């Protein structure tokens, strides 16, 4: 079970409180976690990554185990603690604006 933490606005959009728990087939990657989450919560389609290119939106960042995974390739396998559910996969709205 993979735990995902969404930013406030996306939690409201998806209609969830707290963390999201997802069953993701091994090997769990950034791409497969996002695929599973969009399947569960279709309202999130297009908000984290582009509909067509599937590229991460510029002001959305990914973190796990105190590492910034934002620039890693989408098929990067997630760290073991995330796969085991010991650590969450964090989707964060970047600090921007004023």
């Amino acid at each position, binding site marked *: 079970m993979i735990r995902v933490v969404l*930013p*406030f*606005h*996306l939690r409201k*959009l998806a209609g969830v409180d707290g963390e999201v728990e997802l069953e993701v087939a091994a090997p769990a990657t950034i791409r497969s976690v996002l695929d599973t989450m*969009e399947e569960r919560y*279709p*309202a*999130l*389609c*297009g*908000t*984290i990554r582009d*509909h*067509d290119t599937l590229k991460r*939106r510029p*002001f*959305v960042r990914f973190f796990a185990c105190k590492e910034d995974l934002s620039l890693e390739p989408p098929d990067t396998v997630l760290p073991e603690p995330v796969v085991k559910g010991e650590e969450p996969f964090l989707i964060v*709205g*970047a600090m*921007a*604006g004023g």
Partner: protein
Amino acid sequence: MSKIRILAGTKKGAFIITADGKRKDWQVSGPHFGGWEIYHLKGSAVDPNRIYASQSSGWFGQIIQRSDDGGKSWHTPGSSPEELQGPGGFPRGESNKFTYDGDAGTHKWYDGSQHPWEFKRVWHIEPSLTDPDTAYAGVEDAAIFKTTDGGKTWKELPGLRQAKGHLWQPGAGGMAVHTILLDPKNANRIYVAISAGGAFRTDNGGQTWKPINKGLKSPFELPDPDAEVGHCVHRITLHPSRPDVLFMQKHWDVLRTENAGEQWTEVSGNLPSDFGFPIDVHAHEPETIFVVPIKSDSEHYPPDGKLRVYRSKTGGNDWEALTQGLPQKDCYVNVLRDAMAVDRLEPCGIYFGTTGGQIYCSADGGDSWNTVVRDLPPVYSVEVQMLK
């Protein structure tokens, strides 16, 4: 007695504001989608409780929201659990998918070079006059999209960008289709306005479009006095009783046409400034129009710190300042292009919102004004519905 419902889009959410036909005691509901930019929301003419909203943010992009109960509850079309379980497949999570048709191509950039078309957000949603599931979306970078399934999916009408789109250029606020007018007497005729592309018309339901900018003079922005496109049109409007007569607030100049845009004539007359954004027509007097003059394109506030709506009862040229109830000193707000609307009560009500967060209403055709609400986030858009 009729009920009035104001739909206000702001920089930090949507607000739904209601009162009875006296238009005095207003109840404010919101913010809906707090923290998100709501460029526009508008109700269906045939089902007023069907409301479409454009929600966006710099972080998470575009969202389309729909309410089927007058704004009490909202959902992203096509994403509800019921639809997910429906037979035969469904357009899942595509209500915010705005993909240009085919090769997106390029348009003119600030430095004169060509720049790829990139979708940014929906500026304006115009529901069909006859079908609650059909609506048009004007988007940045400038294009028009159409839905026929209540907002679940959107398809571009690419003929618009073929009207010399490579010569359109963004203004300071971006390059967007911000105005969509549906001809109530001719279902195949639609007008749009683009900053900075100009005004365009289709007579075949959106398949092909022609520029309708003859008579527009833009010497500071366009050196070519006969430029067919590229004009910074801020807003166009019409009265439903005679849809061939249109009024325009351009970057500079107020204009009118008698022939569906084939030729425009300036009617700025005695306005203190002919720069501005909104323009609207009185519900019962097709020759009575309203504008809000702004000092200049670099100052974006009313002349002399006085917020004045100007009314012409002669279709332009002769204008009178309407000031009663509006701040007449130290006022430096702006009124954006989609932030003025009229109701059809007798007497006609006129409404507008400001970048200072105020919404004003005149319940007597503009003679006097009252504050509906004072301290909202900057107001992007105002629409008004009459309910039974």
